[in-house]
């Protein structure tokens, strides 16, 4: 029962983040690249202001899976690194925290390019 509630909250909040993105696509001339950049930077900003952590605590993956969550990861990473290492942490924190996702996307992208051919239909 508790799992259902957790899943439901993730569904609802994650869905809302995407619905907002859809309004941006339909109502503005923003390209997908600009929307993704906007979401990541907004995630860093909201986390810096302390506004994003409460959403993560409430919605879990509903807040961490949208790209604002990627920004949140960068911000919490730099926070932790600055606390531990001072100024060096300014440069190491963000990418250290997000290394798993970025490296996974690079390697899986390379593997897909090696295995599949453009235009392959399932």
């Amino acid at each position: 029962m508790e799992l259902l509630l957790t899943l439901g909250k993730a569904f609802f909040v994650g869905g809302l983040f995407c619905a907002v993105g859809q309004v941006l696509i339909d109502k503005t001339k923003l390209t997908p690249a600009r929307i993704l950049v906007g979401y990541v930077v907004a995630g860093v900003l909201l986390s810096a202001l302390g506004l994003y952590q409460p959403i993560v605590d409430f919605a879990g993956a509903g807040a961490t899976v949208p790209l604002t969550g990627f920004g949140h990861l960068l911000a919490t990473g730099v926070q932790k690194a600055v606390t531990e290492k001072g100024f060096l942490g300014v440069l190491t924190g963000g990418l250290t925290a997000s290394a798993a996702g970025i490296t996974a996307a690079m390697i899986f992208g390379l593997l897909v390019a090696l295995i599949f051919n453009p235009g392959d239909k399932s």
Partner: protein
Amino acid sequence: MSQKAAPNSKLWRNMLLAFLVGGLICTIGQGVMSWMQALGLSREDGGAITSISLIFLSALLTGFNCYDNIAKHAGAGTLVPITGFANAMVSPALEFKREGFILGVGAKMFSIAGPVILYGSAASVVYGLILAIFG
């Protein structure tokens, strides 16, 4: 009457589709996350495995040309989640394979991901500097 309402109802329809598909992707993520936490993993490690799992699924579906087909209908529902970021790397990597593995796959992979990583990192450095100086 129905024609007059068309542009607005189209937006509502697109929003609903984005909400449902995006919500579903996040629910799958939460499923993995809850599973990892039940196995005793920390929030950080569980989150990393959740991201990796979703990125793997997205890369696989992109390879089979499925993700882009879903994206035609789901719009922001498939763009905004981390799977959309992965798709933005894998899709051009595959598409530009014919231009070779250096300037095709290697370079085009970052045509959208590059700006995302750059400006995300830049924002985190600004935040880090503020913390290091005033924190």
